[in-house]
């Protein structure tokens, strides 16, 4: 990552950051109790990554 010239992130880093930020936002918006929020954030993050990687593999046969 080069903060001075802009962020240079890999595909995986971008996906991880995106999934983490959106999971946190959804968790805080949709749950009240801290423990519920943590559970929601972890579950949402897991699903984001699972589906992201799953779609990536599903597209692999068409990449060449």
């Amino acid at each position, binding site marked *: 990552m080069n*903060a001075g010239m*802009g*962020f*240079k*992130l890999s*595909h995986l880093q*971008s996906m991880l*950051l*995106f999934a983490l*930020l*959106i999971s*946190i*936002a959804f968790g*805080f*918006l949709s749950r009240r109790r801290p423990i519920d929020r943590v559970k929601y954030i972890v579950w949402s993050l897991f699903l984001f990554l699972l589906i992201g990687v799953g779609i990536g593999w599903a597209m692999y046969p068409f990449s060449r």
Partner: protein
Amino acid sequence: MADETTAPVAPPQDSRREAMAYVIGVAGWLVPGLGHALMKMWGRAAMCFLTVGMLVILGTGMRGNVFSTSGNDAFDSLGYLADLGTGTFYLLARSLETNGADVSHAGGDYGTRFLATAGVLNLLAALHAYEAARGRKA
């Protein structure tokens, strides 16, 4: 007997609450988290501000496309609407991206999505604040 064809008049308290809910919704759109802060929902306010801010900073840092009114097609217009969802952070994004967008690399494309997501997420948060101000369970 009461006339059932006329609509019931809303009590003054309800109309005042509705007006306040509009103000909170617009405030939440203009400054991410402000709508929740006005209702003393500090955790949600901080979360909105930080996540939307982070997405905007990352999106511009990755040289994503900050759409303007001079769009060429419907997708540009939709992107502009999504970017506008960040409220005043749209101006921040424009001022941060001094080198212009570079979507010739995957990073720039990701940045465009980050910026659009920031806008849509902020609209969702503003709508959440509006509903909470109206008394709906939030």
